[in-house]
């Protein structure tokens, strides 16, 4: 190192050495350096680097475009899914409504049928009771008359007198029957 400093010192002080200082800047080396830089800069800047810049930009676009497309596809799929779900829900709701309606209809129909049956049964019962009452009344009347006639006939045979057309006899029979009825009722 002392050698170096010595040489530099000797040369820097303008000594009679043929060797220039390491800190000297020969103009020819400077110019060659400048030319070399500008040639390389020109060639790379004009020919090599624009191509790679373009490619890198394209790649970025492609990747970003791919991501964009994937996102769009995903959004579309999501939308379709939403629509499908909505439709499914609507269909379910409709089915449920129909079921409820059917339930209600069934209940109503059964109720109606039951009412009709009840009414019909009532009518039949009423008619039967009326028929029964009529038959009974008729039978009672017929019986009353026959019993009266039998009683009168028997009394006539016993007494030997025809009481058939006598109003008084008829009244007596009536009274007797009524009395009989009352005894039965009691």
């Amino acid at each position, binding site marked *: 190192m002392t*050698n170096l400093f010595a040489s530099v010192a000797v040369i820097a002080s303008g000594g009679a050495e043929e060797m220039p200082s390491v800190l000297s800047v020969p103009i020819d080396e400077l110019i060659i350096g400048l030319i070399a*830089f500008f040639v390389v800069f020109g*060639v790379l800047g004009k020919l090599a*680097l624009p191509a*790679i810049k*373009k490619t890198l930009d394209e790649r970025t676009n492609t990747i970003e475009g791919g991501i964009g497309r994937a996102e769009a596809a995903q959004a579309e799929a999501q939308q379709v899914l939403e629509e499908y779900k909505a439709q499914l829900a609507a269909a379910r709701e409709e089915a449920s409504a129909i079921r409820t309606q059917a339930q209600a209809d069934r209940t109503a129909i059964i109720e109606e049928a039951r009412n009709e049956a009840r009414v019909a049964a009532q009518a039949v019962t009423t008619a039967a009771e009326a028929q029964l009452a009529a038959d009974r009344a008729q039978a009672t009347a017929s019986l009353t008359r026959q019993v009266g006639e039998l009683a009168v006939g028997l009394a006539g045979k016993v007494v030997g007198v025809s009481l058939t057309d006598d109003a008084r006899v008829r009244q007596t029979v009536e009274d007797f029957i009524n009395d009989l009825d009352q005894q039965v009722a009691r």
Partner: protein
Amino acid sequence: MSAEVVTANGGPSCHLMSGCGFPAPGAEIFQFDAVLTFDIGSLSFNITKITFLIVLVSVVLMAFFLYAFRKPKLVPRGAQNVGELGYTFIRDGIAREAMGKDGDKFVPFLFTLFFMIWLMNFVGIVPFLQIPVTSIFAIPVAFALIVYLSWVPLGIYRQGFIPFFKNMMFPPGVPAPMYVLLAPIEFISNIVVRPFTHSVRLFANMFAGHLLIASFSVATFYLISASVVGILGSVASFAVTIALTGFEVLIQALQAYIFTLLTAVYISGALKAEH
């Protein structure tokens, strides 16, 4: 003294016990004889090993990137991968880091700077070439000059002449009396000293690195002799030479990166007012 060194250097028989002193390498290892000299006007050009290396570096650089980027594919393969690595490193690691999106248009400039400097540093450890071109002071000066003549006019063009110097010399947020002190310091550090620090930083690192490697290489050879101290010293020097060479690889890339990053920072400062 220098003449003595030269004579001592000359002999292959100069070893530890042979009576000659340690032939320490000096400034002469950065001097090369002109193979050819020609004049253009009053200027004489010396074609030396350095000239040859500059041409070699330029040709290799252009050839590689023209080949790598000849037909760039969306899906890169081979040389394009390597080239892209370099390109994205400059774009994302330096240009955008310093200037954001504005940096994109300065990528070719920074790219050329970085790779030229790196390769010029790198030839320092390539066998037979073995001299970093950037350890020749004129070369870092040329690069620093290009950078200086880029960012100063750019700043004046972008900000205007007066605002450019005003923004540089009167950073906001400082008490007014301080400007008496600050303005001259800012001016000198930015306009006067900056190109020197920019070039000397690169030059000195490569110069010192090369000198170290050369010293230990010479020591390895010089210490070979019939003595235990000599043999051990020789082996140790050789090991140090190898280690230093590995270390140099790191320094070469780092210095190229620092030079380029500083360039990006200067340009960024010129584009808009700092602080």
